[in-house]
């Protein structure tokens, strides 16, 4: 690949493999994500979605190369890396007694000195982030008193406080109800446009993945089996095969809807 072309990708992955014990959880995954793209990683349970995200976040050892903004990410210090990539895990740890503002301020860690303490500037930024995410009135509340939807936005606020161009989300909406789920993804999409973020997220719900991601990556047993626009990847036969289920894909008002069906024709 030409040197010039490399700069066009924010995140570039070459032959990425991850080994757990002796099993390969990720086999030779290669991809290049462009700035501002939202890559939705889909696949059945155990297909390697979380592993891919955790490898991209440098939380598990991997073989292969990950480039961020054209530079090999492996030799970067953790602190430096955290300024480029923010990671939101599937089940974030939420200290019940911590105040919302203090939780979001943790996101400033990569911008502070090792023994440094956040200043007025950091807290003001975090306060305006909370304001932006509709949590302005909850700044002093402790996490234990907040609802699931509020906590989801709070976790997002902490990731945004890192001011990293790349946002990794591992099943960001799995704990939310239907309404909060769409709301959270809308918010991510708004922020992606506002801040020019590159988003890579594992998504369970294929209909939502089709509506929000600009490109999908389908994993099966650790390998990439398809990538492209939602319309290209969400193919009834392929999904049926890789998810081991009968699936119907409908087109409604220009949006793809993926519906799981009973396997047999038996009526209840």
């Amino acid at each position: 690949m030409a040197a010039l072309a490399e700069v066009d990708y924010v995140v570039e992955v070459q032959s990425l493999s991850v080994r757990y014990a002796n099993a390969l959880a990720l086999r030779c995954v290669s991809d290049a994500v462009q700035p501002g793209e939202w890559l939705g990683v889909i696949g059945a349970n155990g297909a390697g979605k979380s592993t891919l995200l955790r490898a991209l976040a440098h939380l598990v050892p991997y073989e292969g190369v990950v480039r961020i903004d054209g530079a090999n990410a492996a030799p970067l210090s953790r602190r430096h890396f955290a300024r480029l990539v923010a990671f939101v895990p599937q089940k974030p740890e939420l200290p019940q007694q911590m105040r919302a503002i203090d939780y979001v301020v943790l996101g400033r860690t990569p911008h502070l000195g090792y023994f440094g303490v956040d200043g007025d500037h950091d807290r003001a930024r975090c306060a305006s982030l909370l304001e932006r995410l509709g949590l302005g009135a909850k700044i002093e509340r402790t996490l234990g008193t907040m609802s699931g939807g509020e906590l989801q936005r709070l976790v997002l606020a902490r990731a945004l406080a890192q001011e990293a161009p790349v946002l990794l989300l591992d099943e960001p909406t799995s704990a939310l109800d239907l309404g909060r789920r769409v709301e959270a993804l809308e918010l991510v999409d708004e922020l992606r446009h506002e801040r020019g973020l590159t988003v890579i997220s594992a998504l369970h719900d294929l209909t939502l993945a089709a509506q929000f991601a600009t490109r999908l990556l389908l994993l099966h047993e650790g390998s990439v089996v398809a990538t492209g626009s939602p319309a290209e990847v969400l193919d009834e036969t392929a999904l049926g095969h890789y998810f081991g289920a009968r699936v119907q894909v409908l087109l409604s008002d220009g949006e793809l809807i993926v519906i799981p069906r009973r396997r047999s024709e038996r009526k209840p």
Partner: protein
Amino acid sequence: MNAVRSTSGPASAPAPVSAKKPIVIALVVLVAVVLLATAIGPADLSLGTVLNVLASHLPWWHPHSGVSAINQAIVWEIRLPRVVLGGLVGSMLAAGGASYQGVFRNPLADPYLLGVAAGAGLGATVAIISSSRSMYLLPAAAFVGGALAVTLTYLVGSRATSHSSGSSIVLAGVAIAAVFTALQTNLQQQHAADLQPVYSWMLGSLSVASWSDVGLILPYVLISAVVLLAHRRLLDVLRVGEEEAAALGVHPQRVRLAVVAAATLGTAAAVSVSGLIGFVGIIVPHVVRLTTNASYRVVLPVSMISGASFLILADLGARMLDAPGEVPLGVVTAFIGGPFFIFVLRSRRTHQGVL
């Protein structure tokens, strides 16, 4: 989407976790406790006498105190060193407890869980048995034993799994403590003649405190306190767990190693002069957490100050409850600590998230 509001004007910076007020309150309490504990004793002294003697030792002011030489000696040579030493020991045990609970994310972690006490006990026993002038060697031997035990705990615990998790280190601590305690008991049984000094040290006491003891542990106490306080924000980062701390650009293992080393240094120094005093590391940080913000920016400094107050009061109890005899200090803290331990367990069950 109604959840998202546009920013209305520049947001002003919200107040940081405020440590000032709790620290000031804790300091006022400490000063009161120090004066009280210095005044109370078999020879009753007035607060005025205590203040007079203290003032006469200020480097830049030598008022004529008018206090008799014997009262001078009681305050300056007997009571005050004991109060100060108790304060240093209490502050290290409490800070050690708060720090261990933070890095291992286990509300019941305390200096004893990691084998510090068992190691120090073995060291002290070896010193008492092997030398007739053991009283001079005892602090150093206890220190070496405690540090050795924690090092072993750390090595075993961090080898146990690929990423050293909090629970595997605590389990290693229990195992190492069991081995050290067995060795210590065995030695003690073989040298029954020395049973008495070993036993009284194990129960914990400040009855022979002197300024030289204070001088002996002060450097370690200062180093430990400075290193722990420097990590107060990083301890808050660890509250979101190992993986998320790593994603925020922190090396959890490095933070843990530095904090465990500093906490152990302070604890081992404390235990070496005071003997085994349990539960301070659990009671004090938990009360601080219940009454203030749970941030380590508050919990660490306030635990240090309140730990000093707590142990000085406990030692006052040890001196006065059975006067003219003494109740072992470790017995006093255990009497308060046992029920408290159960309270922590119960409250932990009803609302998760003491940390």
